[in-house]
């Protein structure tokens, strides 16, 4: 059918319709109506044999206007009017204006997924072979005729691929998000006309974040995706994904996101079990989704005491299900024994501090240290490790402040801090990766002068410089849609019950008006007071850390106004402060390339080492002591990574299946800088059970959100031409005539042909 339209579909999708004749459009409308009326007069006028002058003289006006409205006459009139209208339309020279890449002046980046799942055999050949064939035979030659083409392999990072044969599916995961981010960075000064990602969408460990999508959209680079691999599953249930935070603090609340896909069991009930270290933490019956659609479940559970733990999600075998190996997925969770410390400072006695302290007293996750200015010159300290801690007041040097992972500032005017302390707090968030929470109060936020301080820019809401924004008026906490999804505001597990609980919470004793949230901020709670809603709890990431505003000092009423056994207030504060320090890095923080190694033993450990001022340490000796499942211990050295300050890497290989614990220790001479413990697991004989189908949803979503198209291998021949039409890179505006389109000539012939056939059949009108 495409020959009828002459141009590819993308031209019609992207193009802007114009008339190229230059004649006014109103004239076209006028002419069309006039011709149609003339035809009406000619075809529908009353039939008699009198000559026109006599007819006019002898017939009454009514008789003259009485039209011959027979179905046959009307049909012919419609056909002739349409014919005339189409001819007039073509005379006006309809066309499309479309933005197209300048020939040979733009770069097209082709990203070929080199992850292990591309070696899946989909009947005859592997996905990788199919992708290579499509690239070599149909795509790359066509693209190279028009553009500069750069081919990369995706998997374990972005690597230039000079020869397609070098892609062998040897990477453990595709890391699509990271690769696209790296591509965007590396090509920031190049005219990139588009990206073609060739992938099955499976084994993707790199999150495609909203920030990444925003960055790509900002450059208007369309990411086209070519999906390889079959779309349909056999009769099967697959535990497609299990995700939970890989490390957390003891007894913290964890959330596991589980994706289940199935074929042949639409709507059937299935039993989902979640175990932590062999102990069942959730067991429930779910209804499976329709074929090809994922069922997503989220389960929250306590992480329990410190240690490396295996989190396992499984679906009980379905009746007649042949492949049971993909019904279970595992992940490791490292529950950290070390308690992060949070410093909370108040400028005057407040009930909020008392009740926050109480909330955190029984919390085994973190330590709360408080400073309270009781009189003009006295600071009352609580939770300090020894008498020396904070003895001289609020820290003035990084070494002292950076021992905390989180900082809470209450009602304390900004000029109580010195300018260098304010700068230090900003660096605490930006560079050290700490969390900053600012509370409302009569000397908090804008009333405390923070709107004109350096901290203003890092907060998730604009606070301005207005005074009198704090009001001791009762305000109702209102859960937002974001808040319904957040673990911070999840006071009970069931979402409906949680909503009800928030609706039943007493009003806050006070609230503070703040400005609009920043684009990257999330607002979890709003304060409803005086007939208005204003952000109450907002948060965002900033630099390596995170910031939040809780624009009140009056949540203590949730404690005093509810039964003494009620835990809503305690749970809220525990979850808020845990969030504040989650991901807050330590002096030695280590990342693994993979936590679960499926049928392979290669794993990369990357350690980042910083000193007490959080400056990268380049002269450290970093070793990893790994204890395997058989109890055998090995010690290996991590080597500095060129060009990455303070970063050390080890490419290790393990042979035995089972859990490994790695302790990474960094030393400077004899002095220990820090240490980190983490774990990973090798599982053999299960990889081939997963990822049997293409993750089309991911690929379509990625292309759809960036203005690209999704293609299958069968569409490969269209790709070179269609990639021409892009708004990124160096483009020109092209106009394409529409009048020569065969569809129009066919329509003209059909209209006249239909009239001719009808007239032949009827003999007369």
């Amino acid at each position, binding site marked *: 059918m495409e020959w009828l339209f002459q141009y590819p579909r993308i031209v019609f999708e992207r193009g802007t319709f114009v008339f190229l004749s230059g004649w006014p459009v109103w004239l076209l409308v006028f002419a069309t109506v006039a011709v149609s009326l003339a035809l009406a007069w000619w075809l529908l006028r009353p039939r008699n044999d009198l000559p026109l002058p006599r007819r006019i003289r002898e017939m009454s006006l009514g008789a003259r206007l009485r039209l011959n409205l027979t179905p046959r006459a009307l049909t012919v009139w419609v056909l002739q009017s349409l014919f005339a209208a189409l001819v007039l339309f073509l005379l006006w020279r309809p066309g499309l204006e479309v933005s197209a890449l300048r020939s040979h002046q733009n770069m097209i980046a082709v990203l070929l997924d080199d992850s292990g799942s591309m070696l899946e055999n989909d009947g005859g050949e592997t996905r990788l072979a199919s992708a290579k064939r499509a690239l070599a035979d149909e795509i790359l030659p066509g693209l190279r005729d028009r553009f500069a083409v750069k081919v990369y392999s995706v998997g374990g990072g972005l690597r230039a691929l000079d020869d397609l044969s070098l892609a062998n599916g040897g990477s453990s995961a595709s890391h699509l998000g990271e690769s696209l981010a790296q591509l965007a960075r590396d090509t920031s000064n190049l005219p990139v006309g588009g990206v073609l990602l060739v992938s099955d969408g499976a084994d993707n460990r790199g999150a495609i974040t909203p920030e990444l999508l925003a960055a790509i959209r900002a450059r208007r680079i369309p990411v086209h995706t070519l999906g390889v691999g079959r779309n349909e599953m056999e009769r099967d249930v697959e535990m497609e994904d299990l995700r939970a935070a890989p490390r957390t603090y003891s007894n913290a609340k964890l959330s596991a996101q589980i994706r289940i896909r199935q074929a042949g069991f639409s709507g059937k009930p299935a039993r989902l079990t979640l175990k932590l270290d062999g102990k069942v933490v959730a067991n429930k019956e779910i209804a499976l989704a329709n074929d090809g659609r994922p069922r997503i479940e989220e389960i929250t559970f306590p992480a329990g005491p410190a240690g490396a733990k295996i989190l396992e999600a499984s679906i009980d075998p379905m009746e007649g299900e042949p492949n049971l190996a993909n019904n279970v997925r595992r992940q490791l969770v490292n529950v950290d024994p070390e308690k992060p410390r949070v410093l909370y400072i108040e*400028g*005057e*006695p*407040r*009930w909020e*501090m*008392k*009740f926050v*302290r*109480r909330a955190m*007293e029984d919390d085994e996750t973190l330590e709360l240290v*408080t400073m*309270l*200015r*009781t*009189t*003009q010159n*006295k600071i*009352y300290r*609580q939770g300090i490790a020894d008498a020396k801690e904070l003895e001289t007041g609020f820290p003035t040097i990084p070494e002292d402040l950076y021992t905390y992972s989180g900082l809470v500032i209450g009602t304390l005017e900004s000029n109580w801090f010195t300018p260098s302390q304010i700068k230090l707090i900003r660096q605490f968030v930006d560079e050290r990766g700490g969390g900053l929470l600012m509370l409302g109060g*009569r000397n908090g936020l804008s009333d405390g002068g923070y709107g004109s301080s350096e901290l203003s820019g890092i907060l998730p809401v604009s606070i301005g410089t207005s005074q009198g924004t704090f009001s*001791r*008026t009762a305000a109702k906490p209102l859960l937002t849609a974001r808040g319904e999804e957040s673990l911070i505001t999840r006071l009970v597990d069931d979402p409906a019950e949680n909503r009800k609980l928030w609706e039943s919470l007493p009003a806050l*004793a006070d609230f503070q008006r703040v400005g609009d949230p920043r684009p990257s901020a999330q607002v979890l709670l709003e304060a409803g007071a005086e007939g208005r809603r204003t952000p109450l709890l907002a948060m965002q990431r900033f630099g390596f850390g995170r910031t939040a505003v809780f624009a009140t*000092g009056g949540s*203590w*009423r949730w*404690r*005093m*106004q*509810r*039964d*003494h056994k009620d835990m809503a207030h305690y749970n809220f504060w525990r979850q808020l402060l845990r969030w504040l320090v989650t991901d807050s890095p330590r002096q030695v923080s280590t990342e693994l390339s993979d936590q679960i190694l499926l049928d392979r033993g290669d794993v990369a450990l990357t350690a980042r080492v910083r000193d007490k001022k959080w400056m990268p340490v380049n002269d450290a000796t970093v070793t990893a002591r790994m204890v395997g499942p058989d109890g055998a211990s090995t010690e290996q050295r991590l080597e500095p990574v060129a060009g990455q300050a303070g970063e050390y890497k080890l490419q290790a290989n393990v042979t035995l299946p089972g859990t490994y614990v790695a302790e990474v220790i960094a030393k400077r001479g004899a002095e220990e800088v820090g240490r980190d413990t983490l774990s990973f697991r090798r599982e053999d004989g299960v990889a081939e059970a997963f990822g049997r189908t293409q993750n089309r949803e991911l690929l379509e979503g990625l292309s759809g959100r960036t203005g690209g198209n999704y293609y299958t291998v069968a569409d490969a021949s269209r790709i070179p031409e269609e990639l021409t039409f892009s708004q990124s890179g160096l483009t020109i505006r092209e106009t394409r005539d529409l009048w020569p389109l065969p569809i129009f000539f066919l329509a003209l012939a059909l209209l006249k042909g239909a009239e001719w056939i009808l007239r032949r059949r009827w003999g007369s009108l």
Partner: protein
Amino acid sequence: MRFPRRALLFFVLFAMAGIAAFAFQRGFRYMNPEEDAPIPENPTERTEFVFARLQYPQINIGGLWGRRGSWTTDYPKADRHLTVGLKRLSRLHIRSMEEVVSLDDDRIFDYPWVYAVEVGHWELEDAQAARLREYLLRGGFLMVDDFHGTREWEIFTDGMSKVFPDRPIVDIPEADPINHTVFDIEDRFQIPGIQYLYTGREAEYDGYVPHWRGVYDDKGRVMVAICHNSDLGDAWEHADEPMYPEKWTSQAYRMTLNYIVYAMTH
């Protein structure tokens, strides 16, 4: 029948002495409180802290002793003097006017700190005791003051045993944080009431030894601070009385600020 003249004189003198003695009892006040302590500036200001005075039912015992003491003792001058002092001494954002709260409704839960005076004369009903227990378990703090001797102690503990049948009243050690939040108070001497000026006695009844006691919660935090055989309320109230010793007033203000800051941090 005629009274002998000497008997009549004796009767008149006896009656005058009785009236004088009765008049010196605290709580026997006919004055309008507002005349004694005018309404302060900005009395309805919304503040973080409000001095809440507990209204409770008085024990029904006849005689002069039974008529002395009630929740209104020293009210409102003591409260208003104290707030002025606390404003000057600390960064507490405090309302200049006190608030009277009762155990008969839930309004008390908006005031996590409450002061009860002359608790040697209280008599709590079961429902009131239950509300006070819930108030304390939620995080409220009660300071009791100005009751003296064995008999008043027993009446106070009768009430407290209704609130907490299973929690002991214990001495607060000197090292407890409640004595060190703002001021380090190491010497906790007796703080006599204004009666010292008329009688010259520091103690009332058999309350010669000051006791600084408390009821603790399960986490080791003071929920009820008990000032037995001392009268901090008088020391606040008579801070402007030239004859009343300054050291007692200073000590009372320091201790109270410590207690309040403790209540707001523990």
